[in-house]
């Protein structure tokens, strides 16, 4: 009701005690494609859907390595994510140089939260329009955190952000109780299945699905497309969709042929 009166600046509260600019920034996160994370006792995994704006362009990377024991998946303004990524890389490297050990995930997320909050209360600055899912393994424990433009950060057993993330979240809520004891393979499969819930009409391929893992005796690693494909195959086999995939491929070949004729 009061939205348009109280949303022109970050420093204005609404009568209900809300800062609309921050909420609009969180809307930017919700517009990005899905990114989800989940963890067991030994591993933490992020799975993302990488959009490409058209057939000619590459798929937008959403997973980035911060350090050997930590990485992030992003949703929202990629340019803002780059700034936060650089910050995190700097913090972890500095800690490693000075103290000779891995910077605990929780600490870097706290610093990030402070940094994000600063932008909600400073003249001339705007909130970062990106949400991060941070996964890490330190102190013999797995970690999954979500950060948001508001400066809030929470630890999660599993979480999904971005567009259509509610479907993935519902899947995760149904299954999260069994995650702690799972091995890496099964954990990733759950992640991909959750992603499938929010993929909508888009078919999951090795080019538009990103997976990264970290854990005990597993350095943060972004899986290569062939490995991603093996997980996708396992999902598709169980759901018997391989026939439908083949049909789609045939249709594409026919389209390509007709195009060639027109050029002649």
């Amino acid at each position, binding site marked *: 009701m009061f939205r348009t009166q109280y949303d022109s600046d970050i420093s204005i509260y609404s009568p209900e005690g809300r800062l609309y600019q921050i909420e609009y920034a969180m809307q930017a996160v919700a517009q990005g494609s899905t990114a989800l994370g989940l963890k067991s006792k030994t591993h933490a995994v992020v799975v993302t859907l990488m959009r490409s704006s058209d057939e000619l362009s590459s798929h937008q990377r959403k997973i980035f*390595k911060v350090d050997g024991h930590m990485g992030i998946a992003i949703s929202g303004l990629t340019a803002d994510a780059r700034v936060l990524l650089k910050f995190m*890389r700097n913090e972890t*490297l500095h800690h*490693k*140089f000075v103290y000779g050990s891995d910077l605990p995930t929780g600490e870097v997320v706290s610093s990030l939260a402070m940094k994000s909050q600063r932008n909600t209360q400073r003249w001339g600055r705007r909130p970062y329009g990106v949400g991060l899912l941070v996964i890490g393994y330190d102190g013999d424990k797995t970690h999954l955190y979500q950060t948001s433009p508001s400066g809030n950060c929470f630890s999660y057993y599993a979480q999904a952000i971005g567009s259509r993330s509610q479907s993935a979240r519902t899947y995760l809520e149904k299954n999260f109780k069994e995650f702690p004891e799972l091995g890496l393979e099964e954990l990733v499969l759950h992640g991909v299945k959750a992603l499938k819930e929010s993929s909508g009409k888009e078919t999951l391929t090795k080019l538009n699905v990103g997976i990264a893992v970290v854990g005990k005796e597993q350095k943060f690693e972004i899986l290569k497309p062939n490995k991603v494909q093996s997980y996708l195959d396992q999902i598709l086999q169980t759901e018997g969709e391989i026939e439908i995939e083949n049909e789609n491929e045939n249709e594409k070949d026919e389209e390509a042929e007709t195009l060639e004729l027109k050029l002649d």
Partner: protein
Amino acid sequence: METYLGEKQQARQWSPYINNGGSCLAVAGDDFAVIASDTRMSLGYSIKTRYSTKYLKITEKCSIVSSGMQADIFTLHKVLKSRAQIYEQKHGKPMSTDAVAKLVSRLLYYRRFFPYYTFNIVAGVDEDGVGCVFSYDAIGTLERVKYSASGSGSSLIEPVLDNQVALKNRNDIKKEEFKLTKEYAIDLVKDAITSAGERDIYTGDFVEISVIDLNGTHEDKFELRFD
């Protein structure tokens, strides 16, 4: 008090540098490199520790060994490790051996007027898979060579390498007939540093030896004399 030439004699001034001893060497072949260093850290006629590493693996294809002052070796290696990670984050791939060699040279020259008391050797395989060794002085003078030795035992090791790798002063074998194989190089490096350990009091305890080729780095360790 004044000397007969009129100059004032000064009391001995405090020096920020000490030499912790130790020997390092590296040999390059056609498609591999072998790099080794001992682990003894000395001060004067005492041993401070029998295991203090002088070796750092920078990438899968490149490593560095340094002799001289342990404090400077430790710091230089720390800085190098961080810089290698920054490079990898910025460029999305590990540093090439040539890039590492140049970086070490720059890091050393950066301290031209308060040098790192380190005598470094960088070894690895270059972009073409050819083995390479780079040797330095304390302020970063860089030279690519086929083999090099540094440290307290270098004067004992270098002539051996001259004779066995470069075939200098040999009448029994022709250069065209000689092929430097990996096994030959590993044995040579082991023997050379063992021999240095026999006569140089600052070389001994353990040796960290590493073989680098296109498949990666294989690290090993063996014992020297403890006396």
